[in-house]
């Protein structure tokens, strides 16, 4: 006998009426996480929205889109594996992180032969808010990128935390796929503004005055 539910979907799952103990899960049963950034409108800075669990960046992108853009306007999305994000310490709100972290002065000889690449710099303005993209710097290492970020964006205060991500590690939505972000007026059924019942209530009250 399987469980008969009020939900026909559950009845179809054919749940055992007396379930056995669940089988213990292997330790590995945990997907890695990806951090998702979205762009609210054209030319706006990309902003951190949250993580998803996924197998690779393509899957993370699919998941990120549905989780973080379905209810908000979005014109583009970036995702990167969590381990690709280098994070400075968080500072007090009165203090800029650039004034607190010790950045190794650039060692010219050490960088000889290293090719520079692009790094994306994100600032957190206030604790509890979300990291925002400040710009891209060219550098030979994360440390170097942070130093570069300090010279370019160090005056942009407040900044309680910085994230540094290699541009090459960022999986980005394609320009040619812009149309996947377009939303239609018909989707307003999931917006609070689509529901207006005041007229119905007023009419009801008029027709049924309280005795």
């Amino acid at each position: 006998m399987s469980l008969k539910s009020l939900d026909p979907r559950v009845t179809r799952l054919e749940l055992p009426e007396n379930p056995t103990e669940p089988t213990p899960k292997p330790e590995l049963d945990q997907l890695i996480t990806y951090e998702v950034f979205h762009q609210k409108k054209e030319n706006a800075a990309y902003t951190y929205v949250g993580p998803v669990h996924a197998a690779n960046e393509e899957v993370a992108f699919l998941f990120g889109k549905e989780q973080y853009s379905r209810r908000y306007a979005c014109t583009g999305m970036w995702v990167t594996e969590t381990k690709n994000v280098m994070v400075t310490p968080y500072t007090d709100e009165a203090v800029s992180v650039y004034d607190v972290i010790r950045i190794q002065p650039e060692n010219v000889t050490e960088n000889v032969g290293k090719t520079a690449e692009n790094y994306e710099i994100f600032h957190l303005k206030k604790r509890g808010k979300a990291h925002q993209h400040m710009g891209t710097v060219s550098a030979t290492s994360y440390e170097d990128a942070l130093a570069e970020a300090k010279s370019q964006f160090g005056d942009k205060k407040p900044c309680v935390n910085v994230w540094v991500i290699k541009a090459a590690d960022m999986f980005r939505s394609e320009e040619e796929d812009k149309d996947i972000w377009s939303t239609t007026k018909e989707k307003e059924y999931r917006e609070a503004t689509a529901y207006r019942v005041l007229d119905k209530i007023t009419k009801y009250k008029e027709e049924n005055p309280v005795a």
Partner: protein
Amino acid sequence: MYGGGNIFEATKFDDLATEDPVKLAEFEARIARGEKIEPNDWMPELYRKQLIRMIEQHAHSEIIGALPEGTWITRAPGFRRKMAQMAKVQDEVGHGQLLYSAAETLGKSREAMLTDLINGKSKYSNVFNYPAVTWADSNIISWLIDAGAIVNQMANAKGSYGPYCRALDRICAEEAFHLKYGHDAVVHMATGSPKQREMIQAALNRWWPPIMTFFGPSDKMSTHTETLVRWKVKMATNDECRQQFLDMYVPKIWELGLTVPDPKLHKNADGVWEYTEPDWVEFKEVINGNGPCNKERLAVRRTAEEKGAWVRRALLAPKKEAKYIKPLA
């Protein structure tokens, strides 16, 4: 810096926070200043534990909460309701995802949390152990349970833990749709045909007692509670939430000519709602697994996990060496 195991050296923190009392004082001062705590800040073990517990239970409540309303997802009447019901239940799953992520930043993996849920080790909101008998029950849940959840969540969104606040900001924005959608559906039923009206009143009668227990019994003020209040983990007392809920929604129920099945319910001269004390014995019974739907809710979740296990195994496959690290924020 951390993330890939790379740590940038922090001068200030190391200098200031060598001693626990100092760290604690700094931590408390930060909260007192109204600043949020972020994942890699030092935090007392109790703070971490309590937050994991609270956020995890909240997350479980979302994904289990998807089930009572999901009962009617394939039967919602008409396009408008059908699509909105899907979106609404989907949001609950989405909220679960956001909250598990927030809890993960504190060091407990999502899989570990889901395992604890399935094993009955961790709890979720009691109210979801009641059945959605008709379509009207689903409307009452969308409106009033979500209304209760918003009261709670708005309070918690002012709490001290950054990732939880970020998740709650997003959740509260989405809940605004739930509330309006639920209210819209209830109003249509209450002002509709006699049959619809009868359905919605019956659903309200069924759901009122669980709704009254939604915020939990009156808090016992202990040192422990005081600490959690000072740390902005607990943002409002259960009674405060209940009063706020009654204040906001009882008039909206009454204006539709619906009756609340509690003859004692009224607002007294001091502006405080008086009501029949909810049945806390039953409440405890249900929490302990003996409610009308506990067994089914957990069985569904367990089956979903088991049936989906091959997908997760397959997604893990190419990245066997990839190591899980907790999300950042």
